[in-house]
């Protein structure tokens, strides 16, 4: 018995060391990748045709040589590109993402407001999408070829085919303007005061401050953007869950479980879903990253002051450091998500853990 315990302890320690080595290796790779992202994004802002000074100053001020000169000096645009890059990287190491040419505010401060706004809708959208997709996808696979399967497949196909921005406009007109079921645009109503910042998620911050009015108002404003983003993600995930579950249902161990007399529900929940979890997890990671970084049109329709809106405005205005900052944030988002997915692989699959 004690020998068994010792073996278990050794195995556990070995697994911990393996995990630590894995995390250390990923951290080093991430730093190299992030440097690459910064290099590419910074280079693109230099290569792209157009004068950022004119874009930032506008017609009148750009005709004033004194203002142009002062502006170039202030933002270091009078320096050669390679010096600007090294200054940028140096500042980056100190956590300084530079100053927005357009707003004159630190890019990190701008992003600190924009990222949680997008993260909040993305977080709720992915939770809802995952829950619905697992149920629908599993149901469709379990009843392969039957009416339920056909309906789910057609509905998800429709969900994939409808442009998200169109769905956003449509649902906003219907549920807000016609039916008055949901609140208007933005994160909160104009008569409501934003919560003191703790997490940046208004729903959570209102709750932490015990402000139920603010919490309900924030929920009311979240409802439609989350719904619209969820619809597309549900459609994508559902089809993928169906395929993954179908593959596992045909595997020997699933058949064996059914042959042993286990109920269909127990087979699906206890065996099939666990087996199908790894590919689903990968897609969930990608979908979450996509929600965090690619919600420009939905944010525009719902006047949501998030990362997509910030990125669009920064690109349009040739706001160089803001564009680079967004590139860096999106890069970090994908790196973190991939890391989390890889770690969860280990948690879900003992073979990965032990390898």
């Amino acid at each position, binding site marked *: 018995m004690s020998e068994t315990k010792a073996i278990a302890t050794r195995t556990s320690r070995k697994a911990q060391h393996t995990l630590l080595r894995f995390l250390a290796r990923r951290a080093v790779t991430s730093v190299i990748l992030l440097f690459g992202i910064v290099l590419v994004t910074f280079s693109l802002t230099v290569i*792209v*045709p*157009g*004068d950022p000074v*004119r*874009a930032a*100053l*506008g*017609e*009148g*001020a750009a*005709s*004033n040589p*004194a*203002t142009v*000169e*002062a*502006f170039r000096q*202030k933002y270091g645009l009078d320096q050669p590109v390679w010096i600007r890059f090294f200054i940028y990287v140096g500042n980056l190491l100190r956590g300084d993402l530079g100053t927005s040419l*357009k*707003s*004159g*505010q630190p890019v990190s401060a701008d992003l600190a*407001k*924009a990222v949680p706004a997008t993260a909040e809708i993305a977080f709720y959208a992915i939770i809802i999408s995952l829950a619905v997709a697992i149920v629908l996808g599993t149901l469709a696979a379990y009843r392969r070829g039957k009416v339920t399967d056909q309906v789910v497949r057609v509905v998800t196909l429709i969900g994939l085919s409808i442009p998200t921005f169109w769905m956003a*406009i449509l649902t*906003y*007109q219907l549920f*807000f*303007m016609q039916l*008055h*079921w*949901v*609140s*208007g*645009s*933005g*994160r909160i*109503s*104009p*008569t*409501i005061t934003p919560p003191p910042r703790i997490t940046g998620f208004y729903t959570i911050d209102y709750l932490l401050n015990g402000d139920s009015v603010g*919490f*309900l*108002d*924030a*929920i*009311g*404003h*979240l*409802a439609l953007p989350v719904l619209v983003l969820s619809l597309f993600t549900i459609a994508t995930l559902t089809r993928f869950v169906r395929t993954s579950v179908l593959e596992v249902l045909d595997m020997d161990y699933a058949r064996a479980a059914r042959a042993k007399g286990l109920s269909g529900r127990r087979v699906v929940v206890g065996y099939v879903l666990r087996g199908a979890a790894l590919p689903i997890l990968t897609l969930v990671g990608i979908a979450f990253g996509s929600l965090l970084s690619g919600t420009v049109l939905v944010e*525009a*329709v*719902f*006047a949501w*002051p998030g990362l997509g809106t*910030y990125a669009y405005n920064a690109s*349009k*205005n*040739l706001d160089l450091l803001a564009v680079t900052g967004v590139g860096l944030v999106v890069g970090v988002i994908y790196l973190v998500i991939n890391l989390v997915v890889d770690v969860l692989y280990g948690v879900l699959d003992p073979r990965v853990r032990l390898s």
Partner: protein
Amino acid sequence: MARPYRHVAAALVAAAAIVLAGCSGGNSANNSSNSSSSGGTLVVDTAFSLETGDPGRNYVPTGNMVLHAVYDTLLTFQGADSTTPKPDLATMKQNADATEFTFTIQDGRKFSDGTPVTADDVVFSLDSVAGITDSKANFLMAGITVAKVDDKTVKLSTKTPSLQLPAIVTNPSLAIVNSKVVQKNGGTTDDKDAAKTWLDANSAGSGPYTLQSLDLTSQVVLVKNDKYDGDDKPAYDKIVVRNISQSSTQLTNLKGGDSNVAVDLSGDQVKNLGDGFTVNSAPSAETLFLLINQDKNVGGATASPKFAEAVRYALDYDKLLELAGSGSVQATGVIPPMFPGANKSGVKQDLEKAKAALAASGYTGQEIKLQFPNDNPVGGVEFTPVAERVQEQLKAAGINATLAPAPFATEVQPYVKAQEAFSLWYWGPDYADTSSFLPFGPGQKVGLRAGWAAEADASIADLVTKAQNATSVDARNSAFGDYAKAMQESGPFVPLIVPGINLASSTKVAGLEYNVTWTLDLRTLHPAK
């Protein structure tokens, strides 16, 4: 039902109840509109172009709108008028040469902290804009010196006649700030100025509203200034100006009762608003025009006044105007219709005249590129359909144009460097004065972008000089009129459309006024009786 499922069901019901309760928040402007007949909160939706709450560093439309409500200027425009500056903080007298302008601060004017407005505040405010060289508004103070005469009087001087100065000082960028408060928070009159951060969160003005909060990406909140002592008494306790970038969302918000005023609706959108809404459609001060470069090295076969004439008469302006919607009018020249000196009527299509001019120009049917920015609609007018219609109409007159769109930030470079042979652009005034349109003249800023040097048309260049040096309003307006007429006859520009601006509000709000500089006058808005 098994226990785990009961828990799940209960959780789902609770979640649904929370969502429904939250969702029923509904229409915020309507919720506050009970009080809007006696003040309350006014919600205004607009697509933000907002960079700071510091008036001396501001030079963008939403900034002008907001800061005009918070800060007073020496002079101002009333309502939709953009021709006659009226006293705001001060009255004005000028000398016969139009080089000295003496401003006397009106009695009783106070900042929001209750301290009186003095000449020192005026000198500090204007010197700050002149001294902060990286301020976008710095150019407004070019050539103007400011001197205190006594505690209530300030003199602004220029070396050359400057009849545009009264219009310039109406600009919210030249607002008068409480110098003691701003200095205490880092304000200076040179590049060391560090008051921006404080002014982005607070205000130090004497206008009818004060700044409660400013978020450059989402909303600005203004509250009533109880100590305001001017003519525009604040009608609302609070004004919330929100950033709604999509005009379709502005429309839905207005119809759904989430906002009281929408600023950026297109002509088509206001057409279908129906009862319960007030619409104010008016021509803006922007002009869409075609540029025909007169430099042979750039324009080649099309670099001639005759080719410009052919283009001018080849176009059907009424058909072009169809693309612009309510409030838009044909551009009658380089000066928009609301400014003194503008032509009374525009060019009419004359294909015979166009073909004759084309034959005389030496153009023999070559493909020419029509360059334009395709991501920067002006007054709701998209450039791509306008360019397409121009292309189609020119083809009927024998001119073969291919479309060459590009993003604004990319396209603006060759435009300002005079590298475009044929392009579609727009121009708006730097300040509300006809002199803002003199840059189209030969040898001037926009003229040079068309490869049009001063010596290319000495007579029009003389008209520009005459208008710039005029010392009486009548003489200047007469010079503007001659300039506009001459430009329309022989300039390298073909003005097309003055896009409309469409302000819309619920009928519970009155006083909807468009102004060239601050777009919507928040001061004049009040609950309808």
